[in-house]
């Protein structure tokens, strides 16, 4: 760390306790001042983002609430599934109803985790990039919450989720957190023809860079994080940091033509992308100038933060929808293998339930498609075939003839629709 920055940091830390009381939420102008204080505020009790601050408010119920009301909204899990526009809408509706003084969005999402030996794919799944709905999610956070101070606190991000972090001007990190994995964007332009490659690459990188624009970050950073051949470095020009798409700057972030740029918490802070690092919510609030604060609690469960409860409910609901659909699917398959004639009606009822569940739950349906199941139209085709078989059987029974009827021959367990893919 340069000497001048060390001095500035020391001065800032010394000054913090004097200046911090009840200060309005405000981004510090100087980055060094955002470094955490050596001593933590008394209100900090544990490291879970949403929990600690509920305590101070409870400790003195008769007194006026101390400090700002902080709404913690956790984005946790797989991008596009757990972190979904519908969850975002629920947060926004609740925030608008509860009118907190400050909203802290947290981000904890990894497509790649540190495994036993090396980094490995997250077994829970990989993020899905659907730019239209995710851009609308961003607009929702930005436009619907205008007038409410918001900030992002990155617990860890590897994958498309990193885009969301860069959409916030006020960004903080947890020590050890990553801003990484945007190389996944390259999966979307992996094409041989150089003209088509250039078209697709610039289109998808341009679309993704929209998130950087919203946060006010230089799009060169985004490019280097999404295109391996591009380098990235930064140089100080007075107090401003100037980014260049080369390795000639004072601080080389990515000097390779084969690697994607990425940032850890320290680098992100040193280069002014993040405003500071905080291990827990108390420390984060302290960095923002609040020794005391209260987390907006859930109405149903005052022990939990409101956002935490909404997040937990959302995860439970969509996972339950998917798991139920998967169980029905597996049950139908195994029963049909056992005795197709006997269990056709049961399988049909299962399929109808699956369709109903998936039509009502976009996240569950997204995971359904990711996990190589037939799509809704294919399921509906099969239901119709079974329906016709059932009609044929009933008719045969009625006619007292037995047999399979005329239309049943088209049925079976295969899938296919006009113009659609076959196979199940």
């Amino acid at each position, binding site marked *: 760390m340069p000497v001048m920055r060390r001095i500035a940091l020391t001065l800032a830390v010394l000054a913090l306790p004097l200046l911090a009381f009840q200060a309005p939420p405000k981004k510090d102008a100087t980055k060094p001042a955002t470094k955490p204080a050596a001593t933590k505020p008394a209100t900090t009790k544990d490291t879970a983002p949403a929990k600690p601050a509920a305590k101070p408010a409870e400790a003195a119920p008769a007194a006026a609430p101390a400090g700002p009301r902080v709404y913690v909204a956790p984005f946790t899990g797989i991008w596009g599934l757990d972190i979904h526009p519908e969850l975002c809408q629920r947060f926004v509706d609740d925030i608008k109803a509860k009118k907190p003084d400050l909203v802290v969005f947290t981000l904890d999402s990894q497509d790649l985790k540190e495994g036993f030996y090396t980094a490995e794919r997250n077994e829970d799944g990989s993020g899905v990039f659907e730019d239209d709905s995710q851009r609308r999610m961003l607009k929702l956070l930005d436009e619907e919450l205008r007038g409410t101070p918001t900030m992002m606190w990155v617990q860890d991000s590897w994958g498309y989720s990193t885009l969301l972090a860069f959409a916030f001007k006020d960004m903080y990190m947890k020590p050890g957190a990553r801003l990484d994995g945007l190389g996944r964007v390259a999966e979307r332009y992996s094409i041989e023809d150089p*003209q088509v490659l250039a078209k697709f690459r610039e289109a998808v990188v341009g679309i993704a860079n929209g998130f950087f624009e919203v946060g006010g970050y230089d799009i060169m950073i985004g490019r280097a994080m999404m295109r391996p051949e591009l380098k990235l470095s930064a140089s100080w020009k007075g107090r401003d940091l100037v980014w260049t798409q080369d390795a000639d700057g004072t601080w080389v972030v990515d000097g390779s033509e084969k690697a994607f740029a990425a940032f850890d918490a320290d680098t992100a802070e040193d280069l002014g992308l993040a405003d500071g690092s905080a291990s827990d919510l108390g420390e984060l609030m302290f960095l923002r100038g609040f020794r005391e604060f209260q987390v907006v609690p859930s109405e149903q469960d005052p022990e939990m933060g409101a956002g935490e409860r909404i997040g937990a409910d959302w995860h439970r609901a969509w996972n339950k929808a998917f798991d139920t659909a998967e169980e029905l699917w597996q049950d139908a398959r195994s029963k049909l293998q056992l005795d197709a004639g006997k269990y056709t009606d049961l399988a049909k009822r299962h399929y109808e339930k699956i369709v109903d569940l998936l039509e009502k739950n976009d996240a569950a349906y997204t995971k359904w498609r990711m996990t190589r199941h037939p799509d809704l139209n294919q399921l509906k085709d099969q239901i119709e075939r079974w329906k016709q078989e059932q009609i044929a059987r009933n008719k045969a029974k009625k006619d007292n003839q037995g047999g399979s009827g005329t239309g049943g021959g088209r049925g079976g367990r295969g899938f296919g629709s006009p113009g659609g893919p076959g196979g199940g």
Partner: protein
Amino acid sequence: MTPKTAIATLLASLLALAPAALAQSTKPAPSNPSSSSKVGAKPAAKQADPPAAAADEQEKKQIFILPLEGTVGIQLRAKDMHTIKDMANAAGPGQIVIIKINSNGGLVLETPEIQAALMGIRDGGHRLVAWIEKAISGGAFTAMYAPEIYFMRTGSMGSITRISGQAWVEQGAQEWEDAVARTCEMGGRSPFVGRAMVHAEDLLSYDVDPDTGEVTFYDTLEGTHALSNAKENLTFNASNALACKFSSGTADTLDDLLTAMGVPKGQYEVSAAGNKVFEKWKRTCEQCEKEVPELFRQYQLGGTGTGDGNVILNKRIDAIKKLLEWWKKAPEMLRFQFQVPPPEQLEEQLEQLKYQQQQARKQRDGAGN
């Protein structure tokens, strides 16, 4: 017609249309974004000569906002642009038409009609503005006709390379690039910008005059600011589009946009017509996406369980009749989204099914006698 010949034919029609449209468009762009335009300073010129009664509420001019979303030629249609053009013309010259674009591109064959509609709006003496949420490929081409382009912060625009599937369409590639360059000029911009959006080898850089702020584009990398090298295809974001004055401003909300456009308060009112046109077509497309697969299903499987040929025939006849109705309501969806056989073919099949039905009826009646 093979896809390649279809593209070539359509390209030829586009090329034939371009000079005429250019000639018709006698009204210059409010200002040239590639030179020294100032954000928010432009619009007043057009509204500077209102009639004496302009202050009257009833004389207020309209702001038509037409959202254009989805695949060009399917969900994003020139037809809707023509509808708004007619509405603007009916209200008299001097209206504002904002096309709000969110598209990954689509079919080249729609471009001549898009050109006719958008240049028609300009020729009607209206102020045409493109507002970019996402304008990739055909979406970017559509936006190029507007003399003023504003970006949302999330906006991106470019990548107009013509492809078929995942392959570059080499046939007519130069003609296509020329057409895009001309369209760029029709919007009052440097043709070099359009070219850099089409083919990777087309370079683009620019300089900004420190005194006048005027921007000069180069089809080389000699400018201070490089925008596209020999391996890249130009796609703008909000910040670099603004820096080189390709965009006239950045606005996320309508209020911000109108402020950036310098629309004087009290002289205009926002019309809901454009949104209604968009919503109506969107609902139609959604309904079509739901119903057409059902009709396929009905055609394939309907009545088969009864073992009654007549029931099956009735189901099929009904499905074809409904598909023919959809052909009238949403031909773009049927042709390109679902690749349903053309109406003539369906009519033919309908006649055959009706004939079979007649024969079956005759047989049944004969058997009854």
